[in-house]
């Protein structure tokens, strides 16, 4: 019949055509994300202009026109180098040992290097969730390392025999002081912060009140007043003849200050532990400290690792404040190097600040990435 011609049944699949060029690949992506509408296009152009106006001078300053070698200021003077001069990296190079070790005696610098190396060797496996021997590692890092580092940095003398010559803390400086203050502050404030957090959640009214007042007091005042307090007021509190090292005084202030912040972080972790954990521990007949030490704190502290890292980042940035009370941390060391006439050039301060910014940025950005990584790792099962 003629009807048969009216049907057409396709027996093979139609050939798959590639998607239109304008919706795939780079062009499609750009159409979708950059030029989807007229306002969007204008925004894109403005954004590119802003980015260009920042990046171009920066690259010019830091790389293209930068001076990489030289022995004194002459290398970085516009008149000598001819025309516009960018960053004076020769100056940073010349001062590099000072920025890292301060005025630590050159022949003793190996001791600082050993401490840096121990710090890295102990911290890296501790920070990696998959690394074994966590308990031993933690004990080494939190108890053995501080003692060894203390004697390595300050010196060790038995009676008349000098094993390691004494190095007074006023000659310490640069990154060494920054790290010593930040790491000691955080390690020492952790136990104090845990105690305060437990105190704040205690059922005993006076303990609770004392903890709340302590925490809110330190959280309410700026660190700089705390530093002034520890450097000016603390000596007044001590009996005559008892003299504290300036570094130690700053450390006490920083520790008390960050303990309050740490307490709030730990409290957040304690609150996140379900009530059943407390009840289970009590049902087993555990005493308070057994319950806390064996059941609650191990879980709570693990939960707040990102918070602890964030507190550490804040403290690490805040260590720069010690230069106001006359100590030479990394920024203080750089600031004080500006008074050296051998390197005084128009771009000296820019180069110094850029170097400091890069060092601080690398540390802080790295730590914040780690904190995000741990947060993702610890947040299993509750993902939305």
């Amino acid at each position: 019949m003629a009807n048969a011609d009216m049907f057409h049944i396709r027996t093979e699949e139609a050939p798959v055509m590639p998607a239109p060029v304008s919706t795939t690949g780079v062009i499609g992506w750009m159409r979708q994300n950059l030029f989807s509408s007229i306002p969007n296009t204008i925004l894109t152009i403005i954004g590119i202009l802003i980015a260009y106006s920042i990046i171009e001078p920066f690259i010019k300053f830091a790389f293209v026109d930068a001076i990489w070698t030289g022995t004194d200021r002459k290398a970085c003077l516009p008149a000598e180098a001819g025309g516009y001069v960018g960053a004076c990296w020769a100056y940073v190079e010349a001062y590099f040992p000072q920025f890292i070790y301060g005025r630590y005696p050159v022949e003793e610098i190996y001791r600082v290097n050993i401490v840096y190396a121990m710090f890295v060797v102990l911290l890296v496996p501790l920070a990696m969730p998959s690394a074994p021997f966590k308990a031993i590692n933690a004990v080494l890092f939190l108890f053995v390392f501080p003692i060894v580092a203390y004697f390595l940095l300050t010196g060790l003398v038995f009676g008349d025999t000098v094993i390691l010559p004494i190095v007074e803390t006023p000659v310490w400086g640069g990154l060494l002081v920054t790290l010593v203050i930040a790491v000691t502050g955080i390690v020492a404030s952790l136990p104090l912060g845990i105690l305060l957090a437990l105190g704040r959640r205690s059922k005993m009214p006076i303990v609770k009140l004392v903890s709340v007042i302590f925490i809110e007091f330190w959280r309410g005042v700026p660190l700089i007043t705390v530093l002034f307090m520890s450097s000016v007021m603390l000596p007044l509190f001590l009996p005559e003849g008892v003299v504290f090292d300036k570094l130690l005084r700053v450390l006490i202030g920083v520790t008390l200050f960050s303990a309050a912040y740490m307490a709030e972080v730990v409290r957040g972790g304690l609150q996140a532990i379900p009530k059943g954990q407390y009840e289970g521990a009590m049902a087993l007949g555990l005493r308070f400290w057994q319950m806390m030490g064996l059941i609650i704190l191990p879980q709570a502290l693990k939960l707040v690792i990102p918070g602890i890292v964030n507190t550490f980042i804040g403290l690490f940035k805040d260590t720069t404040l010690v230069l106001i009370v006359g100590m030479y941390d990394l920024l203080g060391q750089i600031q004080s190097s500006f008074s050296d006439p051998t390197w005084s050039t128009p771009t000296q301060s820019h180069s110094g600040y850029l170097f400091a910014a890069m060092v601080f940025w690398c540390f802080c950005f790295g730590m914040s990435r780690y904190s995000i990584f741990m947060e993702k790792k610890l947040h299993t099962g509750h993902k939305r």
Partner: protein
Amino acid sequence: MSVQEQHTAGPPARASLINDPKVRGLFYQILLVSALVALGYFIVTNTLANLERQNIASGWDFLSTTAGFGIIQALAPYSETSSYGQALFIGFLNTVLVAVIGIIFATIIGFIVGVARLSNNWVISRLAYCYIELLRNIPLLLQIFFWYFAVLRAVPGKRDKWSFFFNSFHLNITGLRGPKPVFAPSAEFVGFALILGIVLTVIVARWARKRQEATGQQFPMFRTGVGLILGLPILTYFVVGMPISLDFPVFVETGPILRRGFQLGTGFNVIPEFLALTAALSLYTATFIAEIVRAGIQAVSHGQTEAAHALGIRPGPTLRLVVIPQAMRVIIPPLTSQYLNLTKNSSLAVAIAFPDLVSVGGTVLNQTGQAIEIIAIWMVVYLSLSLITSAFMNWYNQRMALVER
């Protein structure tokens, strides 16, 4: 019966006192209090002995002694013959000024960057991301130094200037100069008109909301408000004969070299210390605010946006009327702590010698040696500023909080 009697007959089997939680609690608290009292006693006796030995006066008498030092930015009358108390008050005013201006700028920048961070436009969101990650990982003090020593020292010197905004604002090493409003006696009418405009706007807004709730009719509130708040004072300004004039800074370019530059007492001057401090504070805090805003907007379920779009609401009003009000509930508590941080961080002014409370207090401390009193003043002021800010933000938070019907 007999069994029961046997049980009640003997003394009740009580745990020993040592194991009674109440007794133990009491014991530990007494221990804590006595330890604190002992510590306090130790500190007070040592301090008194030290003060006596070092011949440092104590008490608050120094507040009325002549200060003898100048302050480069004073919001209230101050001269070198003023007292230490007045100097500290000037410092306090400067702290509040920096904090308020810094909070305003940080909020504006933070909200813009936070929204830009969520933009569909790849360039804009990357730019916002880079800004946030770059600035929040660099210490604030370094940023203050950068703005003060590296940027504001690179501007033209005293006898030269950069001009912008139609030649009405100028920047050089002495700071930012601009026109200063000068008020004639009848200018107060303009002020009254402004207050009247605000009051009328509030009344009309209430009436409009009531009418909308009752009848559903909308009222062009935004235009009316702008008309009342801006229009009334402008109208009054012309009616009473233009009582406000602008005093432009006078810049002398010729003549004896030492006379060149901006003339004293003309125009409005913002000192470079203030510029550097507010720039660094607001740009640094804005990064944290941007992250808070981003998290707040992301916390609003996407269904809300979709529902608004389904109702035919355009993207702009969707953001303004649907997303932001809900995001504010998540945003406000962390925003409060950022405001407190900014206020506390304004104390870094001491590093570039901007005369805020800590900076002026440091000078007074060096001159009088009365460390305890000065530090006590600092702590009390910052603690009360913290309490006031958090009280205000708590009140605002309660207004914005979810009201369940």
